[in-house]
């Protein structure tokens, strides 16, 4: 398996090196290793030396599509590595006319789902520094323990456990064989659970969550849908949102953000993944997606760029019960 990974890495590097070194692209957005084996971080590669650091592993979690808007100001053409979720973000940005698709070369990386270091630590009962992993087809072996082996599905990041489309869509090329769609996974089980509890309890739940918000706006900055040049948060005249870290203000921030990305959220889960205090932010977007599906029929943003987004179209027979 380790061998297959190395082969994969060479395949990826060769493919992108060709384009970067020939000048077809000026910049490659990918990942490199961070401080530890369970951390990978964004890489901005411009030459073959940079490419030596390129990594594709189970920790390449950052969605790179958010960098495109800024980087396209300085670069003519950009190559970007995209997982399934990331590719939908690119498609969404293109559909919003925020990114010129002609200036992007999208390399798709079918994704087996990324691993959650916290779960690895929990399963091993060891500090991650004393641990390693070997990845098989569907199982992960924890080295450093007595060879404990666990189903990969059990070790996935929360955002990957609900992913239906691990294969990138709309890319210029797929660099690895497709892994197949995963519609067997449950996207809405958490939302359904929340919907079932009484409104008062639900309010108490969200209050206790939002109360912990630091207002660092990492959810917004990491979100590929939050592409406004100036967010309502910063607007001063009128000032929509106060700076007090008061819970009513926190509510306004999170709910406004969720509604503003309604119909555009591609379910990449970056909002929740980056949150330093681990607020369950995906449930807000999931709830809106679920409602849109129920009202206007199934729609998954960024999947099919030809399909009209339901919130951007009007049909005379659109259900309107919620305004009556």
């Amino acid at each position, binding site marked *: 398996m380790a061998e297959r990974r190395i082969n994969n890495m060479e395949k990826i590097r060769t493919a992108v090196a060709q384009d970067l070194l020939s000048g077809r692209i000026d910049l490659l957005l990918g990942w490199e290793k961070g401080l*530890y084996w369970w951390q*990978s971080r964004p890489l*901005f590669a411009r030459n073959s030396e940079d490419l030596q650091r390129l990594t594709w592993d189970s920790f390449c979690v950052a969605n790179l599509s958010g960098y495109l808007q800024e980087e396209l100001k300085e670069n003519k053409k950009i190559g970007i590595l995209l997982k399934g979720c990331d590719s939908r973000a690119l498609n969404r940005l293109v559909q919003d006319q925020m990114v010129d698709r002609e200036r992007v070369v999208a390399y798709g990386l079918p994704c087996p789902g990324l691993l959650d270091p*916290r779960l690895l630590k929990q399963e091993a009962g060891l500090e991650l520094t004393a641990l390693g992993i070997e990845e098989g087809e569907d199982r992960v072996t924890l080295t450093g323990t007595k060879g404990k082996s666990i189903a990969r599905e059990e070790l996935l990041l929360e955002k990957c456990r609900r992913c239906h489309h691990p294969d990138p869509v709309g890319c210029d090329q797929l660099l690895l064989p497709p892994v197949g769609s995963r519609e067997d996974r449950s996207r809405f089980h958490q939302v359904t659970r929340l919907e079932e509890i009484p409104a008062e309890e639900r309010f108490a739940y969200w209050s206790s969550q939002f109360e912990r918000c630091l207002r*660092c706006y990492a959810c917004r900055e990491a979100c590929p849908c939050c592409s406004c040049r100036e967010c309502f948060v910063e607007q001063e005249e009128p000032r929509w949102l106060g700076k007090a870290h008061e819970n009513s203000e926190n509510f306004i921030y999170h709910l406004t953000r969720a509604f503003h990305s309604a119909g555009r959220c591609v379910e990449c889960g970056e909002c929740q993944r*980056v949150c*330093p205090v681990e607020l369950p932010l995906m449930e807000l977007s999931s709830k809106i997606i679920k409602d849109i599906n129920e009202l206007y029929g199934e729609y998954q943003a960024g999947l099919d760029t030809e399909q009209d987004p339901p919130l951007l179209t009007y049909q005379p027979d659109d259900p309107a019960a919620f305004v009556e």
Partner: protein
Amino acid sequence: MTKYITSERLPELWARLADRGPLYLPVNEGTAVAFRAWEEGKEVNLEAVNSTVSPKEIFLPAWETYLKFERAGKKLALAPADANGLARPVTAFGLRPCDLRAIELLDLVFVEQDPPDELYTRRRKNTTIVALACSQPDPFCFCTAFGIEPTDAPGADVLAWKTGNRLFMEARTPRGEDWLEENSRLLQEAEGVEKPPPVESADFGLALEGLPENLKGRFEDPIWDQIYRSCLGCGICTYICPTCYCFDIQDYGHQEQGERFRCWDSCQFSHYTLTAGGNNPRPTRKERVRNRFLHKLQFYPERYEEFGCVGCGRCLRSCPVGIDMVSVIRALGGETVAR
């Protein structure tokens, strides 16, 4: 004076301390850990290294109101707000040595630099600090690079450490003595001389000597172009950091009455340095990231003769794109040991 309490009696201690005044200590909040005022039902976590958000918020709350205003016609009346929690004695329990050191760095700004900040200073004076020695550093810890001893906290009133089932507490100041004395009903005398068990902490091979001096001519170094590039421009690093202290001042209310508060602010935000006239001396993420790291590694040493970082490792753990103090120091060449 050294005393101890066994783990199962800790809830009694919390209840007693909280009776005396606010008791801040690390509690679980989902999978995050934060310093909160104790109340029945809170799940205390004395194992976490380090809390997700630093305990600076005990002394510099995320937001606090300090004045109330009333307007009637052209008249304006201003009055100081009730200083919440400033009157009663506070206990801050379980600060790790790095976090306590960070508070001492904040003291340089808020207490020692004239004029003293009264909100901060009063909290600081009212608070007995019980530091907790580390028994198991986290992979992200690098306090030793800044000369911090993970099992010692020179600035604490009381130093606590765990050995097996016992939590030992040694008074370090007269206030610490009084504090132990007040709680002696729940504590037992330690037999013999007890010391925190030694631990090792990583320092990532950082070599910091001469770094501030070295950085002086490197404001325009092309390395900053690489360092900042993946930065999202969020405020995580600044809000979880124990030594970041920037704040904003804002009004809240309507035409007739309201209040003025200060709240945390972040040098990573685009509007932080934007003037009303539209001039922004730090217009992009590059200038903002550079300012944050130079503040810790050059400007703080220049102004206060101390590094503005304590190696708590929070940015190493929480930056979503892996821009952290260790990576940046390495990029700037502050490293002797080959990786």
